[in-house]
């Protein structure tokens, strides 16, 4: 638990993350994600409670925890007046590396994050994606068992985001590094994480694999827009054979499939009744639906709430 004056930023959460796992910590701004990470990386003492990282107590064995972890915290914390190579050299030196071993490690890391060509340029000339990649290289300098990535792709373009996802995935799968990743992007958690913990207002509201969490919410929804609006009622009658009526856009009808048929069966039934559809949409449950089910708000709505001034 972590309190700031009267605010419970993190209010009693239980987490267990296995070695080599990518754990996605998903929630809106202000949910308590960064506070949790700051406690786990030993930069913020918890008000109460206990946690171990890599087997070490975060309060009593801070230096041992730090030697086992790497972290890229929110916003790439880089010096605009140093080059990429100078950053890696400084980090490697502070971790006690010297001479040829340090030189080799610097070259390996720059190669790995694709910054060899820009290694001797000052960081202020780097794009957002390059800064994030350098940030990741710095987190990996001392070959940590666990890395903490706090919203690593916020503000990145889709291409840079995808490149970073690939590298994070490779770290876990090929090198067995455990990854604790906070994100406010549903897609990121869905694509990258083996397991997801959803946090809201300092509490974990759901935890599991993305597939299991979405399965908890229920089956997909089919929404059909009739080509002839006067056939709306007849359309609803046909759809009712496949599940319960659910909210739809104006002019459309929708059902949540109950297991007595899938999308092809719905299409065949519509065809059999001579009903023509202007549009058919299949909506698979998303992690946003999970968030909605658990908190009564959509993640996007919660995001807007958090962004509004108090």
């Amino acid at each position, binding site marked *: 638990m972590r309190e700031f004056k009267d605010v419970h930023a993190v209010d009693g959460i239980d987490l267990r993350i296995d070695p080599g796992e990518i754990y996605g910590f998903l929630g809106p701004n202000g949910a308590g994600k960064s506070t949790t990470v700051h406690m786990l990386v030993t*930069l913020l003492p918890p008000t109460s409670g206990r946690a171990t990282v890599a087997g070490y107590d975060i309060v009593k064995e801070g230096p041992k*925890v*730090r030697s086992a972890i790497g972290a890229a915290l929110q916003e790439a914390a*880089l010096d605009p007046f*140093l080059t990429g190579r100078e950053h890696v050299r400084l980090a490697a030196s502070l971790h*006690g590396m010297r001479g040829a071993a340090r030189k080799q490690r610097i070259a390996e890391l720059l190669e790995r994050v694709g910054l060899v060509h820009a290694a001797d340029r000052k960081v202020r000339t780097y794009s957002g994606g390059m800064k994030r990649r350098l940030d990741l290289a710095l987190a990996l300098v001392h070959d940590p068992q666990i890395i903490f990535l706090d919203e690593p792709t916020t503000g990145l373009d889709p291409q840079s985001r995808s490149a970073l996802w690939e590298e994070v995935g490779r770290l876990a799968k090929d090198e067995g590094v455990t990854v604790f990743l906070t994100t406010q992007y549903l897609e990121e958690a869905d694509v990258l994480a083996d397991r997801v913990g959803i946090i809201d207002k300092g509490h974990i509201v759901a935890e599991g694999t993305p597939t299991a969490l979405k399965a908890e919410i229920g089956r997909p929804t089919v929404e059909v827009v009739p080509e002839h609006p006067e056939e709306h009622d007849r359309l609803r009658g046909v759809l009712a054979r496949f599940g319960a009526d659910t909210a739809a856009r104006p002019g459309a009808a929708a059902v949540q499939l109950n297991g007595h048929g899938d999308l092809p069966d719905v299409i065949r039934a519509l065809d059999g009744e001579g009903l023509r559809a202007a549009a058919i949409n299949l909506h698979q449950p998303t992690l946003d639906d999970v968030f909605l089910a658990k908190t009564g708000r959509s993640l996007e709505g919660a995001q807007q709430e958090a962004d509004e001034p108090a």
Partner: protein
Amino acid sequence: MTLARQVLLIAWRSLVRTLRQPGTVIPPLIFPLMLMAVNSNGLRAATHLPGFPTDSFLAFFIPFSFIQGALFASGIAGTDLAKDIDTGFMNRLALTPMRGSALLLGQMGGAVGLGVIQAALYLLVGLVAGVDIESGIGGAVLILLLATLVCSAFAALGLWMALRTGSTEGVQSLFPLLFFFTFISSMNLPRNLIEVAWFRDVATANPVSYMIEGLRSLVIEGWNAQALALGFGLTIALLVLAMTLSARALRVRMART
């Protein structure tokens, strides 16, 4: 890794980033020289006052340039650290095995390095302009040492303010205060020639007066043990106080377990 090596690494980074910012390096080099040129001409008549200790106002005034340079150093050291706090760079350093004391000592590296360059430049310009250093080469070395210590003490005050406030605005608020202290000192006149009683009393109580007088004694008098003892003593005391306050503030700011 030894503390000395950690300090060197942080100091290297601090010095490199400082020297790569012309906007940070040029004003501390130029402005004190400009003020030196203006005052040594404009206030030359002061040397005719009975009891004025030298007939060269430039020689009298040049020590103030070292203090002014140190003022810039406080801004540089403090602002750089405040930016590191703001951007999260300090957290990055805190996640390494770096000791807090290495951060404090190393972070002054840029400011102190620049301070040494400034002091050497002011001294060189003074010599070229005809100032005789009465204490000779040994005195010139001591001037550089005392100027560097003053720079370190002021830089440590900048660090303290950065750690207390965590903002560049907080650090910048210190600058006018230090500037005020330098102006209510014996920068323009020897204390015994200041006629306004309250000003003389304030200048006498102001430690900056003794820093200036320590430096000045080496330029215009030769070896004045009392002036040097007060100059070095008060500068070291201020440095120790500022570093103690900074260390305490660092423990609060960098609350790693």
